[in-house]
């Protein structure tokens, strides 16, 4: 075997970070995206163009804890680990159950789903409506970035070569009685890449909307969210008047610009996205499910 590649698997995060500070590497967590992206033919190892750093075993990246009202999730927690963790909110668990299938959930990580930055990334709509932040760690220290700033385009994130995504922070998740939904439309219930996905978040106080957020996946280069449109609904009474629903749907009709690809068409995606939004807005019951 003439070919040689460099791969690192350190026992601790600090060793990993100091290697990343010396050398530009490909970071591999569960590998469920990376191994497919670089797949060769049978019997031939995937060709990954940089030295590889394995991080999925690092315990520092597997911690889940509550800090004041915020939830911190270690980036290398697998979906299965999150499903079994007592402090993960039910709405997030329900969404995770719709992702992939048991074997992939035993391997795929939340941090990997974010850093892969697929336009159809399964957890992303939900993370956007939770106003998630990502904590990036390097030898120079930590920085915290909003997920919507971190993800810049398909497979493009604002991670410096010497940084690792260490934690995902869901701010104020424990103090709010919010109703959260996640919908995914695909060819198959399990293991399918979404044609369209939608997350909705609503918090009601005395029949008035106190906070509302929407995010759409697989209908643009990154998740589609509009704070301006969301603001139009603040203070409105539930159930919403038909005119209000129509106004919000029309506003998203203007900014959702999907494409045709092998999985679906632009027309189908847009229709389904707007239907999911309309359905969410038409719900009579928005009981907190956190």
């Amino acid at each position, binding site marked *: *075997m003439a*070919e040689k*590649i460099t*791969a690192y*698997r350190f026992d601790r995060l600090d060793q990993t970070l100091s290697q990343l500070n010396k050398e530009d590497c490909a970071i*591999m967590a*569960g*590998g*469920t995206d990376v*191994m*497919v992206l*670089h*797949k060769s033919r*049978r*019997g031939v*190892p*995937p*060709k*990954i163009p940089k030295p*590889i750093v*394995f991080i*999925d*075993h690092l315990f520092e990246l597997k911690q889940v804890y509550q800090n004041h009202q915020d939830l911190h999730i270690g980036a290398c927690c697998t979906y*299965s680990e999150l499903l079994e963790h007592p402090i993960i909110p039910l709405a997030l668990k329900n969404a995770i159950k719709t992702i*992939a*299938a*048991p*074997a*992939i959930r*035993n*391997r795929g990580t939340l941090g990997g789903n974010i850093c892969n930055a697929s336009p159809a990334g399964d957890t992303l709509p939900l993370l956007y409506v939770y106003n998630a932040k990502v904590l990036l760690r390097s030898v120079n220290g930590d920085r915290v970035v909003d997920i919507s700033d971190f993800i810049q385009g398909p497979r493009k994130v604002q991670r410096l070569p010497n940084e690792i995504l260490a934690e995902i922070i869901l701010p104020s998740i424990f103090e709010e009685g919010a109703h959260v939904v996640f919908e995914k439309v695909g060819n198959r*219930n*399990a*293991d399918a890449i979404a044609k369209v996905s939608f997350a909705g978040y609503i918090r009601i106080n005395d029949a008035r909307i106190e906070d509302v957020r929407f995010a759409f996946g697989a209908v643009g280069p990154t998740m589609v969210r509009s704070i301006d449109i969301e603001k139009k609904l603040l203070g409105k009474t539930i159930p919403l008047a038909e005119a209000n629903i129509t106004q919000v749907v029309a506003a998203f009709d203007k900014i959702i610009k999907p494409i045709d690809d092998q999985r679906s068409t632009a027309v189908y995606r847009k229709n389904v996205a707007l239907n999911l939004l309309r359905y969410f807005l038409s719900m009579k019951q928005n009981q907190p499910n956190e």
Partner: protein
Amino acid sequence: MIKFTLNGRTVETDALPTARLLDLIRDEFELIGTKEGCGEGECGACSVFVNNLLQNSCLIPIGSIEGADIQTIEGIMETQQFKILDESYSIAGGVQCGYCIPGMVMASAALLSKNPHPTEAEIREGISGNLCRCTGYNMIVDAINLAAKKGDGLWQKK
């Protein structure tokens, strides 16, 4: 050198760290019960246990399994649980061409050891990552149901 446990035996390999566990199992260790279907984690034909968790061996670079406990279909064949599954698949007519079956059996064993009395919906969820192109799903679901009944009390102790 990467060292790990394969079906209870400590093994070593000098294959590239990016090599797929699937290729290593089949080509280097000649355990050909584990199949390659899609090679993209969508069909489950390559399912193995990594530290007792069901995973797709086509997605696992061997560099990440240093020290891990890997079990293939060959590794569970001597267990009482396998014998119950084997019988149940036969009785229910769960096997047609057979290509998906090692993966299906691994998924069945993983499901039952976590949930010894699954509902039909839970069985379908348990094998949702496994494709059968003969579309014998109903018989496979029957087989797992039967295995849950026949193996009552057997699945809890892993």
